[in-house]
């Protein structure tokens, strides 16, 4: 028998931990490869010059000051939701109810603005709005947590279902508060008085949101990595039995963490309603509650990494809408490109941990 025919073409082995620049070289290489593959796909499918498509994608994000602000606004909201679901994820509690928790936060904000708009001084109204949005998101997040803690229900299904309830609730109140009657939408809330609108910092509409999320990001990083609570979350996530063995009240940690997770989602919803959009629709979240799941995973639940991963997603989204207008391409085409890039970035993690040993050669293939 021929030996070479029998030896596997390659086998996989774990590599020694790479120095940081080695890992980054692999990630960078993956990104480069992704761009090359995307270029081929672009040329093959559309016949366009890939470089001009890339240029347009970049233009879509940074082409003007306004576009850059929109990019950072979207980045901030996505990052906020991603940060919100992360403590739950670290606890291995799959909160895919970010959509619902955001919507409830937004609904609470809209309710305060509409119902209390002319009854409270503006500063108090804003405080009440903020507090009730946080509370609404927290409660919406805590409901599945209580059921999980008490009866071990499946949190994935539960949080997912809670999204639909939230959408229906919002749809209901939109009809209740619709302006004008029969319009089926709320329109801009308190357009004349701007009551309950979050203040604008200078002349920058989005700056406040961005700063708030930056602070949340830093706090979340510290909370997860340096506090006793953060440590308990990690232990419960890794092994409930170890947590009980050490005397951690697992049920309490689950509920507490989901209160936090829901609360930050509520903040994201509030930032959208009171901060920038000043209205409420059932689609105001734009699917970010789900995108956040991916952002959080891609960043391996590290808040600082999430800045980068959410940037990547938002950057590609903005680019997508730009190429669809400039080239008349379907925006799905940009999704294809995003898919290719994600494939390479996620795939590169494999090569950071493992190496391929090719047959007969000691060389590694990255």
């Amino acid at each position, binding site marked *: 028998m021929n030996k070479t025919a*029998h030896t596997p073409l390659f086998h996989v082995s774990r590599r020694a931990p790479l120095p940081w620049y080695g890992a980054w070289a692999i990630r960078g290489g993956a990104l480069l490869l992704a761009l090359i593959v995307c270029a081929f796909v672009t040329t093959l499918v559309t016949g366009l010059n890939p470089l001009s498509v890339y240029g347009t994608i970049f233009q879509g994000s940074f082409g003007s000051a306004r576009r850059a602000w929109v990019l950072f606004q979207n980045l901030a909201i996505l990052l906020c939701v991603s940060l919100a679901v992360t403590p739950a994820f670290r606890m291995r509690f799959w909160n895919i109810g970010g959509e619902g928790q955001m919507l409830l936060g937004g609904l609470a904000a809209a309710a305060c603005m509409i119902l209390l708009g002319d009854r409270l001084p503006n500063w108090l109204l804003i405080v009440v709005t903020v507090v009730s949005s946080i509370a609404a998101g927290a409660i919406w997040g805590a409901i599945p947590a209580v059921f999980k803690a008490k009866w071990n229900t499946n949190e994935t299904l539960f949080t997912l279902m809670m999204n639909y309830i939230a959408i229906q609730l919002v749809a209901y109140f939109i009809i209740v508060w619709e302006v004008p009657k029969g319009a089926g939408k709320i329109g801009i809330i308190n357009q004349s008085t701007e009551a309950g609108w979050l203040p604008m910092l200078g002349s920058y509409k989005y700056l406040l949101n961005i700063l708030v999320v930056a602070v949340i990001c830093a706090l979340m990083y510290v909370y997860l990595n340096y506090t006793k609570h*953060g440590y308990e979350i990690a232990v419960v996530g890794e092994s409930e*039995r*170890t947590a009980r*063995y050490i005397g951690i009240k697992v049920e309490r940690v689950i509920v507490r963490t989901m209160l936090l997770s829901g609360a930050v989602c509520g903040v994201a919803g509030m930032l959208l309603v009171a901060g920038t959009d000043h209205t409420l629709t059932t689609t105001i979240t734009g699917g970010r509650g789900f995108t956040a799941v991916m952002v959080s995973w891609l960043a391996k639940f590290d808040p600082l990494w999430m800045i980068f991963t959410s940037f990547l997603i938002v950057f590609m989204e903005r680019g997508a809408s730009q190429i669809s207008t400039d080239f008349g391409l379907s925006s799905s085409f940009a999704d294809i490109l995003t898919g290719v890039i994600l494939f390479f970035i996620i795939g590169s993690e494999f090569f950071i941990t493992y190496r391929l040993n090719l047959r007969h050669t000691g060389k590694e293939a990255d």
Partner: protein
Amino acid sequence: MDNRIPAVENKTPAVEMRNITKAFGGKVVANDKVWLDIYRGEILALLGENGSGKTTLMNMLSGIYFPDEGEISIDGREVVIRSPKDAFSLGIGMIHQHFKLVDVLTAAENIVLGLEGKLDLKAASERIRAICDAYGFQVDPNQKIYDMSVSQKQTVEIVKVLYRGADILILDEPTAVLTPQETEKLFSVLRTMRDDGKAIVIITHKMHEVIALSDRVAILRRGQFIGDMRTADTNAREMTNMMVGRPVTLNIERPDPVDPKPRIEVKDLTVRSADGILKLDGVSFVANAGEILGVAGISGCGQKELLESIAGLQSVESGSICYIEDDGSRDELIGKDPLAIANMGVSLSFVPEDRLGMGLVGSMDLAGNMMLRSYRRGHSVFADRRAPRELAEHVVEELEVVTPGVLTPVSRLSGGNVQKVLVGREIASSPTVLLTAYAVRGLDINASYTIYDLINRQKKNGVAVVYVGEDLDVLLELCDRILVLCGGKVSGIVPGRGANKHDVGLMMTQLGGTAHE
């Protein structure tokens, strides 16, 4: 290859492993140019400390890992083993330490699982019976796995391998979970298989088993092949010295109890599992400070429930567990969780059986695991990370834990080192009660003696030690008194000094045994 013995009377080896090298993560070389011959009609004991690469080597033979370098020949023909399936087609079968059986299926279903061809359970059962008759196994092909004892499950694993036509059998620590009687039965089966011309490799840490069972021993140390020799030509001391690489003593110390006085008093403790099965039935005993109380019993006889009841992790049906302070005041422990017990000021340490699943967090580093006991300290919302890190460094140094550093996840460490980390943490809180479950399971001689030594030091410090063990020889050498459990009841409490292994073995299988009626 100076210390290789001449091939067993010019027979061709069934397996020749040549220059086998396997590295994990670059730095850790699990096997370094290992040579090993395995012969038919012979039982080979593969010896080595934890992390010396025994299991890795055998995993390459059974197709789980692929060697980085080296050749493997079967019956003189060079082969490439890419998967367990390849290994089976070459007649190689491995029985792992952790059984790989589907609980809800029957023995026969498990045995034919994954085989190609038409599913004919009746014919399979016939063949299983034939195999059992040939070697003296007792397996009911129609019994569900969840109804089986550990030893029955192991038998199913062995039959599964034989059913697939294996004639080169590898057993990874097969006796770790067996009683002395079950071990004896397994050994007689293995001898029958050897006489039938099969090649058998057994990985074990227990020297008396090596001597009782094997024909030849091969020794690995730190991934390297050290030598092999006929078992008849060597002795436990020589083998241990070769494994460790320096002379070691093999006596377990048993200092006299230090000022023994009652510390934990258990009265009429009755515990049911979540599905209503009686696990402990009216158990009463006293654990004294400054003394080691051994707990013997067939596995699953209530040892786990007993320790977990004391540690506050098990809900108890009735009875009482009293903690007695030095001044004689008594506190009831039942109904309190571990946190409440700690808040009472009772320093209770527990080394559970499931080290990575309960005692430690596998994915966390050493320092993070040290934090489990200490993170609550202080009023700050921030957890102190420095003290645990220093403790981790201290434990690594003191107990000679082999690790790349205190920032390595504990799941990457070998079994012995994992246990050292766990025991090191548990005794660092200077406990007054130390509960240990199978503290040396899977540990090599050197690590085991480190653990015995640590436990003895706790005893000398006046700690009440409860030592649940499975190796009767060790229990008899180490413990001051031995509580024997049988089916959740106390079969008797015997003094460790002068106890007879046979009597204790009997007490494990029938209440009161015969000697203590």
